[in-house]
């Protein structure tokens, strides 16, 4: 038990060290635009279908569940506002980020892991270049940016999914659905969704690059790296969700107190 906790803390420290090293390389040396564009294509454009589909379905599922609870009270007029607000603030970013972490994070960690196993990273080192600069930085920047953009697209698609399912099967037409949205969803809620998306993107990027870069032990090691990446990203997404919500809520209360006094 104690050993496991020790190991976890050690891993956390090594992850932080690795991230700092990558960011230092990024700020001092920059990133070459051709490899950045290539990585953005591989990671971002090719994950578009999965993001759109998952966004639609997540929105539809939440609309169905919230409709069931409101129907008993005859409060279906609130359906649009409530389901949009719940999805944007909390469950939407988390569920879409789960899917993206599988698609994007596990993909990158498998690719980097294969490079590490087949000594391609060492070959780059032999040629006198820094593998962090050439391989890791473009991937991490591309991952962070494209996860951020994809998450925001996915959040938009959840609204579409909610509208479609409620007008098709729940008897709430799109106008009724959208009437209450402005009542519930303030710009602050959207801001929470956006901040969460950015941080989730950052977590997916750094964690998958960290586990991929430090892969050892043949084909079995690559599998292990992928498994560790997906577990670590999921847990960190949930943890981040909680921390960001709490921090932003207390910030909001602080602002309100400042405005009132």
């Amino acid at each position, binding site marked *: 038990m104690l050993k496991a906790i020790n190991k976890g803390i050690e891993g956390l420290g090594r992850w932080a060290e690795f991230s700092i090293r990558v960011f230092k390389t990024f700020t001092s040396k920059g990133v070459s635009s051709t490899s950045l564009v290539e990585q953005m294509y591989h990671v971002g454009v090719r994950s578009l279908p999965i993001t759109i589909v*998952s966004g639609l379905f997540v929105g539809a599922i939440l609309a169905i569940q919230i409709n069931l609870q409101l129907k008993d009270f005859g409060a279906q007029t609130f359906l649009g506002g409530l389901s949009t607000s719940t999805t944007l603030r909390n469950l939407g970013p988390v569920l879409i980020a789960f*899917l993206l972490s*599988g698609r994007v994070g*596990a993909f990158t960690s498998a690719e980097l892991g294969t490079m590490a196993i087949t000594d391609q990273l060492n070959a780059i080192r032999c040629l006198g270049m820094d593998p962090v600069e050439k391989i890791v930085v473009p991937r991490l920047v591309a991952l962070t940016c494209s996860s951020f953009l994809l998450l925001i697209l996915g959040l938009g698609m959840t609204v579409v999914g909610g509208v479609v399912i409620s007008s098709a099967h729940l008897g709430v037409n799109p106008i009724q659905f959208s009437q209450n949205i402005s009542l519930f969803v303030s710009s602050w809620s959207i801001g929470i969704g956006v901040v969460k998306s950015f941080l989730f993107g950052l977590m997916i990027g750094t964690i998958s690059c960290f586990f991929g870069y430090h892969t050892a032990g043949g084909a079995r090691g690559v*599998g292990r790296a992928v*498994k560790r990446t997906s577990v670590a990203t999921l847990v960190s997404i949930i943890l981040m969700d909680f921390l960001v919500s709490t921090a932003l809520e207390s910030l909001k209360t602080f602002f309100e107190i400042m405005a009132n006094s």
Partner: protein
Amino acid sequence: MRNNEQRVLFLGFEALLSPIRLFATSCRVLVFSIVNIRLHGREITNQMFESAVLSLPIILFSLTIVSLMSILEFSWHMKLVLKQDALVPGFSMVLMVREVAPVVTAMLLTSRVGASIAAELGFMKVTEQLDQLKLLSVSEVEYLVIPRWVGCVFASITLTLASLVTSICVSTGIASRFMNYQPHEFFNTLFVFTKAFDLGGGLLKAFCFGTIIPFVSCVCGLSCQGGSRGVGQAATRAVVQSCLFIIFADFFLSYWLWTF
């Protein structure tokens, strides 16, 4: 370009169909040869331990935070709509039982168990251990797939129940700390809206997700090709496809169980 699109479409269909084919094969093995099937008991208990017991800490930790979040968010929304939070416990419990507990548990199981199944079977395939099994005339469905299926279904159902218990404890604690509830008062209003049917539906969802994960991952692992790169790709594909199938299944089950 057109050719490429056709290939992508074909691959998509294959990804959809091959887990179903493997599922049908396993069912056939289970049903038609129930007399002379060799259930590898040691393997089954191993897989139960691997997927249920070893995933317990991470799932309990995550579900603690998720239920904490969901109760705070619910009280925020209720205050916005009704200007009070008397109905919070009932509502959040319904959403927890029907939706959050099975889905989040299944997603975490996918990343832990699904990826490791695909990586393990992919590694066995790459190192030709599967061919050796064939030489020893050990059926891979009997020896590899069915134990993982049993273990994963067991893990999914028990962990969903465990996460429900966790969420009840956590939300009681949070409500009595932050929302001016007495614990017994909160506990009494917790099950106002939850019926036995909801719990049954949640467990049915858990069973379906527990079936989806091992079959999709086994197909990805067994069809893995090309060394260490192939193993990584197999694990990635297992995670992505299981997550997608889980979301689809969740949508259809929610619709079928509760809308009609």
